[in-house]
């Protein structure tokens, strides 16, 4: 696997994982409050 492909994969995975974790975290935090 080339470095460029690895960087591309990591960048895409990173964005997806951060957004998933942040949104699920926010939903879980807010559902406890209600």
């Amino acid at each position: 696997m080339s470095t460029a492909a690895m960087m591309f994969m990591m960048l895409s995975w990173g964005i997806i994982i951060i957004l998933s974790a942040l949104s699920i975290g926010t939903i879980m935090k807010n559902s406890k409050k209600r």
Partner: protein
Amino acid sequence: MRGGGQKVFIFWIITLAILWYITRKGVNKGLERLAKFAMPAIYIFALALLIRALTLGSPVNPDWTPIKGLGFLWSPRWNELSWSATLAAAGQIFFTLSLGMGIIQNYASYLKDEDDIVTSATATASLNEFAEVILAGTIVIPITFTFLGTEGLKSGVGLSFIALPNVFRTMAGGPLFGTLWFLLLFFAGITSSIAMFNYLTAFLEEEFGVERKKGSTFVFMMYVLGGLPIALEPVLTKTADLMYLTELDNWVGTYFLVLLGLIEVIVAIWLFKSKGLEEINKGSYWKIPKWFYKIVMSFITPAFIIILLVFSTINYVKNGYFKLIPDFALGTPKLIPWVIDARVVLIVVFVLSFILTYRSISQKLDKENGRK
């Protein structure tokens, strides 16, 4: 009918019957019951498969390793980028997020005023990408590459249904992992199908007072009628081209999704103007900033869809998709009736939906005007 065709037919009817049963019970209960079990199961199955995929080694060819498969997936090949590939990708993402087909509106109608739209939408899109890009991409591509090399990856739609079963047959623990994989696909498919089945039933129930049980039976029968050619074509013609499905997918699964998505954006953003932003942000923990709404949602998104549609239309014309008998069917004359059949179904469904929707909207407007 041959044995294989008969099996496909029987399982298709069983799946439709399951859908019918769940929708009869009302979407909330049915969906909740299924989602509570199926959604975590999908992720657990996928994680197990992902670990298996990455630990396959190189049983067929020393050059075919799972990591090289990932390398193939993530190395951009700019020379292969085309408008038809872009339209197919847009169609895929519209389809997978249920955009441009009325399902989001159906789900939105179940929301309360203070429900958080921004966070839910972000969670939906990002978790969907997590499942498709990270999990499915790391399962399907490495497994196929390990056993079949780059040639195996070119089988397109058949990848899941033709290449992978062969792979599962030969790999260690194949029956177990194959079962897990197809259960996963089944859950993913049936949850989407419920949404599509339900909004038709809900439409009949809410707009025309058709009782839910009767409505879902009617939708079930329409599904059987519309889907029957997909099951019959390979059996009757002894071919595997699936022309009826291909033609439906060319329009419903790709082109119209993007076209209807454009209409949705125009209605939601341009016609509602700043009221749209107010509605989106009401009750949301994260707020969409005004600049994002004005620049990205009002301008960049529709502009991108318009450019995509214009170039895709040119592409469709060039490839003869708009002709009475499309170019792709010319090579197999005996399959032309199946293409025509798909077009007739498309036109009937379009005209019927237009009349029903028009009637229901004008009834609503009459009621509102009467009240005033």
